Structure formats: C-alpha cells, structure tokens
C-alpha cells in the first residue's frame, strides 16, 4: 500500500489565539478512504481545507508538513508556490463541499462549470471537454447527461446537485478526493445513493479519499482508516474495524453511545390505545397555488393529502419524512398557523373527556387558551431566540403576553423552568450568544414550558445539533414529558431519533402517510417499500451492517417502480389500510 498523502504535525490557527488544529498527523493511502470524524468545532474542516490551502484569509498554517506523493512526484503542499498549487487543485486533488445548494454558481450552466476543470487543466477544446463531461455525467448517474449539461443548478434537487459536484471533482481523474461532509445536507435515502456513488467511483479509479463527517454510520460504510478529532487534536486513529469495533479512547466511546441507531427488534409492539386523544387531525389536506411569474399560469402544489393522525395524551406521535414530504405543513396546521383545505379539521381536547375544540374555528378566548396550552420548539436554536433579549426576558415574555402572575412570580417561574432543563439559574441575566447550540435548545424548551402547556410540537428539535448534544436533548424531552405529563407531536427526518422517543410513527412521503405504527412494530415488520428504504438507508456505526443500496434505490425511487400492491401513478395513491391492529400501510387490497 503506497502512501498518497502524509500529513504531519499540522497546526493551524488564527491571529495570536491558540491553534484551532493542533499537531494533527495522518496518512492516506491510494485506493483507500480515510474518515476524519468529529463534532462541530473539532477542526476537521480546517484540516482538510489546509491540504488544498483553501482557508479563510486570516488562517495561518503554523507548523507541520503536508506531503503529496502524486504520479508526477512528491510535493510539499505547505510551501508550494501559489501557481503550482493551482495546478494541483481540481486536477490531482479535488474537493466536494457540504452544501450543494450554495457551492455551485447559480448563473452558469452545469456543463460550463464542470467542463471548466478540463479546459483549465487538460487544455481541452470545447467539443472534447463536452464529450468527457457527458461521459462523467453518465457515470455519476444522470439519466439524461445532455439535459444535465444544459441545466442550471437551481433546476435540480439537492442530490442531483451533489452528483454534479462529484462529477466536477472527478472529471479530471484526481488521485485524491476530499469530501467535506458531502451528504450532511441531504436526505438519508439520497445520502445512501451519493455514498454508494463515491465508493464505486473510487473502486473504478483507485483514488484516495478523505471523508470528513460527524456521522459514525457514514464512517462504517465508507472508511478503511479513521481519525477521530476533538478540539483540534487527534483523539484516536487507526483501522476502521478496530476503532469502530472497540473504541479505545473515551471520546470515541462517547460518540458511539450517542449515535442514534435503529434498534433491532425481536417482537412487535402492542397496538396503541386511543382512549384519550389530545390532538386529532381529520382528513387534513393542503394545496398551495404557486405563482410562477407575471405571464404564466399559477401551479397548484399539494403539500399534504388526507392526513388522519391522533396524538394520545402523555404520548409522542412522530411524523417522519424527508425534505418536501409535508411533515412541517402538518405541524403548522396542527398549531393553527395554517388553515387546512375545505373538509379537513383539527380537534384539540384540553382535558380528558372534554368537549373537543376545532382549532380553525375558535373564538378569541378559546384561541388564547389554545395558544397557552400548545407550544412549539423550533429547529434552529440559533435563530429562534432573539439575540437582543436576555434569557430572563425571553422566558418571561410569554407569561407577560398572557398576563400571568406578577413580575416576581414570572421571574420565579423562569428560574424554575431553567432548572428543569438543566441550566443554572444564574444564567438568567445572560444573552443567548453566551450559550452553545445545545444550551440554546434547552432555553427554547424552557421558554415553551413557562406557560404550562399540555401539548408540545417539536419541529426537528435536534437536527441542528451534534450527536452527543442531540442525545442529551432527547433525554431531556423524555424526562419533561413524564414530569409535566406533556404530549408531543414530534417532526423529524431521522428514523433513528424517532425510534427512541416516539410511541407511534407516521412515515410521510410526498404529502401522504405511507405507513403508520409504533416504532417497534415498524422496525420489526416494515411493510411499505419506502419505509424499508428509509430504514435501510440509515447508516449504522457497524462495519458488518453496510447500507443495502438496492433496497434504498427501490423504495426511494418513483412509485411506479414499487412492487405491485403499492404501485401507483400520479396522485392516485391507494388508501391507508390497517394490516394488523395499530399498523397501517398504504397499499392496494
């Protein structure tokens, strides 16, 4: 095995501050994948960007060496002149970035952007470059390469854009590919396909890959070598099977424990009892009319169709789906923030046996009461707290609005809620910027609790957080549910997160619920091909359980390719049928 890239004692810092990357060393072999694993702020991105010297202007490469043993000889990348470095970028070493949405220029056609690499490094003419690019497009899985050549990035989905990025990185046949969180912004099924693509390209070309990720499941599926980083230092490194099989360093072990997993279930769960329903969505549909521009007809888009859901008191109902599946629309309708189409209604029972209130036909007093009893926790803790309000003001504001208690009462309540979510009461005088992402999400939860709600709607409350923090927040949500007898409507894209907290799961795809059951039943006996694909696409941190790409491709593809009993065309989805008590699947009889 020949070493392709040797990084030794790499140290990077800003200004006079302590280094952000401190003495990192690793070695990538040709034909192998090395995974740089770590949570946000661990320095993994800065490390991989140092290789190509694509760094923020203020960053300094302070110490160490980066030796690249390419086919054209060895180069020391730390001190290579800028011009020689440019010859290596995109040609011998190329890079894929995290956000396919923003990493491509929206003003240039994909063909132009990809062919540019060849025109730069291979001195190719227009026609020859186009031929090579079309070949590459076909290889990365574009069904119609010519159309992809002509397309603008905004005409494509995230997965397709990432494929275009990969084509751009691969078209010059580099010896080393650096992929910086290439699938973090993608849905799980898309992630599985993109990872599969990188792996098969690697097999064809024999290139080395540096894969930067925070997800141990991705590591298990991709890497031969692993480097675990924390706070700029290497915690543990070695062969993937050793590190993943028996993590030696406590930090790695902690990452492992926190990684959400879909459990392997031996027996299905008992069907849920529905004697006390707090929230009920009946036949809820929502269509939007999109105005496409001054001179075109508006297009109607169906965000969700005929959704029937019931949240039992004290339980958690989770809606799981990928982006665009309509799960957030459902949550917004359940909150009363949007009205459903004609014929749908949402009922709320504040107390057991009470007369249900229709959320979209409330009078003023009912609405005020409902707004107290149903609260929401948002996805992004960075933008859901006002940066100009002290924690105390943010926590007491809801009570002020509803005119509850005196100023002293409100302060006491705020302090109490803060201690509930595990934060110290002396933090009341601080501003949100003084808190980490996980602490901010605790603050959001505390704010939602100040009004003593009965129902909490959580819209992806952990997806902006690191795995270890996610784990803590989920534990907190479980504790609070017991303590305050709350009911949750939990929105998530991640089956593994839901596996842990939900009592019942509804899987949504393209606006319809395709399968609904308690999680154990769902994992023991998934029926619908899309559910199977979601489960199969979940990367497990176990190198003996690789992702089954066929299963993913089958279920995540078009409904026309599903097995006969699930197949449909256009909007003519079959009805949701109850296969066994508590387990509903959308299929033909």
């Amino acid at each position, binding site marked *: 095995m020949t070493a392709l890239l040797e990084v030794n004692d790499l140290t990077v810092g800003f200004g006079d501050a302590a280094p952000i990357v401190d003495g990192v060393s690793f070695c990538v072999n040709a034909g192998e994948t090395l995974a740089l694993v770590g949570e946000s702020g661990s320095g993994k991105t800065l490390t991989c960007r140092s290789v190509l010297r*694509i760094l923020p202007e203020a960053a300094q490469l302070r110490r160490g060496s980066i030796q690249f043993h390419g086919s054209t000889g060895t180069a020391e990348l730390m001190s290579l002149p800028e011009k020689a470095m440019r*010859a290596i*970028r*995109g040609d011998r070493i*190329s*890079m894929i970035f995290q956000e396919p949405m923003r990493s491509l220029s*929206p003003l240039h056609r994909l063909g132009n952007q990809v062919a540019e690499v060849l025109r*730069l490094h291979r001195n190719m003419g227009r026609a020859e470059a186009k031929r090579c690019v079309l070949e590459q497009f076909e290889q990365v899985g574009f069904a119609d390469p010519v159309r992809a050549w002509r397309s603008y990035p905004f005409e494509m989905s995230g997965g397709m854009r990432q494929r275009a990025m990969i084509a751009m990185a691969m078209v010059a046949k580099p010896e080393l590919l650096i992929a910086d969180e290439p699938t973090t912004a993608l849905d799980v099924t898309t992630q599985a396909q993109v990872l599969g693509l990188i792996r098969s390209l690697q097999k064809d070309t024999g290139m080395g890959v540096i894969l930067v990720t925070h997800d141990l499941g991705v590591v298990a599926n991709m890497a031969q070598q692993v480097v675990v980083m924390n706070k700029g230092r290497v915690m543990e490194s070695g062969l993937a099977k050793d590190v993943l099989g028996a993590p030696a360093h406590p930090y790695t072990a902690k990452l492992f424990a926190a990684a959400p997993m879909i459990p392997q279930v031996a027996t299905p769960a008992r069907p849920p009892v529905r004697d006390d329903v707090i929230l009920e969505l009946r036949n809820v549909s929502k269509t939007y009319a999109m105005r496409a*521009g001054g*001179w075109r007809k508006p297009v109607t888009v169906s965000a969700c169709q005929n959704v029937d859901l019931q949240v039992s008191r004290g339980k958690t109902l989770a809606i799981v789906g990928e982006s665009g599946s309509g799960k957030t629309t459902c949550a917004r309708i359940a909150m009363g923030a949007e009205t459903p189409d004609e014929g749908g209604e949402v009922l709320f029972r504040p107390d057991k046996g009470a007369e249900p209130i229709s959320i979209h036909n409330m009078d003023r007093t009912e609405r005020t009461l409902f707004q107290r009893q149903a609260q929401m926790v948002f996805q992004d803790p960075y933008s859901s707290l006002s940066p100009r309000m002290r924690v105390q003001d943010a926590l007491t504001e809801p009570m002020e609005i509803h005119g509850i208690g005196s100023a002293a009462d409100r302060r006491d309540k705020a302090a109490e809620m803060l201690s509930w979510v595990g934060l110290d009461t002396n933090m009341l005088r601080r501003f949100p910027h003084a808190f980490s992402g996980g602490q901010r999400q605790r603050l959001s939860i505390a704010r939602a609790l100040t009004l003593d709600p009965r129902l909490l709607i959580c819209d992806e409350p952990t997806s902006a957080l690191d795995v270890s923090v996610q784990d803590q927040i989920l534990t907190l949500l479980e504790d609070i549910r017991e303590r305050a007898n709350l009911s949750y409507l939990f929105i998530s894209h991640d089956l593994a997160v839901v596996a842990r907290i939900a009592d019942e799961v509804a899987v949504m795809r393209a606006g319809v619920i395709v399968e609904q059951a308690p999680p154990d039943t769902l994992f023991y006996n998934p029926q619908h091909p899309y559910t199977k694909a979601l489960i199969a696409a979940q990367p497990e941190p176990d190198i003996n359980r690789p992702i089954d790409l066929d299963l993913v491709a089958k279920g995540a593809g078009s409904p026309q390719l599903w097995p006969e009993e699930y197949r449909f065309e256009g909007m003519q989805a079959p009805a949701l049928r109850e296969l066994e008590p508590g387990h509903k699947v959308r299929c033909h009889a």
Partner: protein
Amino acid sequence: MIFLRYAVWRFITMLLTLAVVSVLVFVIINLPPGDYLSNQIAELRATGQVEGVAKAEFLRHEYALDQPIWKQYLIWAGAAPGPQGYAGLLQGNFGWSFEFDRPVAEIVGNALWMTVLVNLAAVLFVYLIALPLGVLAAAKSETWVDYTAGFIGYLGLATPNFLLALILFYYGHRYFDLPIGGLMAPELEGEPMSWAKVQSILLHLIVPTFVIGTAGAAAMMQRLRANMLDELGKPYVDTAKAKGLAPARLLAKYPLRMAFNPFVADIGNLLPAMISGSVLVSVVLGLQTIGPSLLIALKSQDQFLAAFILMFVALLTLIGTMISDMLLVLLDPRIRYGARG
C-alpha cells in the same frame, strides 16, 4: 421563446405606465389655481391694457383652457377633438408655449438630443468609473487600494455639483485649455453636423459629464464593492478555487457576475436622478439641454411646455428600466425561469 414574449409583455406594460404617467403629469401641473393665460389676463386687467385681454381670451379658447380638466387632458393627449380637431401628443403635436410664444416642438427641438447626449455620457462615465474601482476595492478590501478608492468616492459624493463645476471650469481652462460653458463653440451653433462640430461637442462634454457623473459613480462604486464582498464569502467561490482557477479569472467569472444584478438594475434609477440633477447643473454650466426650459416653464405655469418635458423625462426613465429589466432577464437565468436559487 421566453425572452421575446417577455420583451413584448414588458413593452406593453411600459406603454400603459406611460399613459398613467401622462395623467399624473397633467393633473399635477394643473393643481395650482389658474393657468398661464388667466394669470396674464388678470395682469393685463390690473395694468389697464384691455386690448391684450381679447387676444388672451381668444388663446384660452383656442387651447381649450376654458374646458373642464378631463377634457383638457384628452385634447392635449390627442384622444378627443379640440378646437383644431384631433391635434395632441398622439398626433405628434406637442402644444404651444405661451411663455416663448412658439410651438413647444420648436423650443425643445435640439435641446432634446443634447439632453440625451449629456445624460448618456454621464451614465457611461458612471459605469466606466464604478465598475473597475468597485471590483478593485472589493478584491483588495482593507488595503490602501480600498481606502483610496473609498476616499475619492466619498469626496465625489460630498462635493456640491455646482462647486465642482466651477472648480473644473477654472482649472480645466487654465491647464488644459478646456472651453467654459455651452455644449459647442458658439460659432458652430445652428450649423449642420460636421467633424469640427462633433469635436467641439465632445470637448465641451468633458466637464459636464464629470460633474453630473461623479456622485452617481461614487454611490455605484460603494454598492458594487459591498455586493462583491458579500459574494466573495459564498461557498461557490471556494468551489471555483478548488478547481484551480486563477484569482483574476475567478473574480470575473463568478462573484462579479453575481454582484452585477444590482448594477444593471440601477440603469433605470440612474436616468431620472441624473436628468433632474442635471437641471441645475445645466443652468450653472449654460448647457443647451431641456433643463433650463423646464425650470422656466414650471415657474410661469407654461403648462404644455412643462408637461411635454416631464413626459419626455418619464419616457427616458421607462426606457431605462425596460432596458435594465431585459438585461437582467438575459443575464440571470433565475429570473428567466422564475425560480429561486
């Protein structure tokens, strides 16, 4: 063909807008009580020159000023028959100037083209100065290049136009032998177009262009710099770097293209600002544009002259916005496809 359909649609909306503008212009000019002729009649009566009153009364009837305002508008626009039948804007008849006692077309005539010329030169100046300076200031942000460009820009913004004009005339004449005032040498006025005349006009244009254009150029430069700085931090710039593009080509191909939109969109805003700004400058510099006539017409309620000039300015503005809208559609596929990217 999307673009062609858009162009036609845009042209139709421009005509509609122009119609609305014409109503507004006419109404606003007629808002102050009285009109040129009734003011004159009052003055004649007061000074006892009764024989003039009959002529003024005759003109009032002749130009339909004794009609209700909506009818006056229709007659002026040429959509209703006046005392001379259909003879309004639509028929190419721009009306009569009471102040100068000549047809509006005759007064405005050459000045129209001079106005277009002066302002086009100024717009060109704005773009030629702002584009390189703005890009340079952004690419070399927070270095002496940036600071110098910014300083010159703010100086341009802060100096009053007429002061700048006087300074430039003085020094231009003293050191470069530039002519003072006017848009051509006096002996060439009224002569047919010739090479000597073109040369003379170009020489006379230097100072006015500079005076009218500096403030716009300074503002535009700062806007372009800010836009460029925003774009330079975007991930697609990193992507381009990772391809191995050289800095100058990278800058021109990606961030500049993105930062260009507001730059292009400003064409429409630039024209009216310049024309109204150049009214005063024209008076100070003695330029034969429509600026001075507009000032006189507004002061004396010479309504047909004022209305025609305002309509002309509105037309220029609308054409400017139409051009910038069409350029945007050509430049930015996201607008062309009506999508968000």
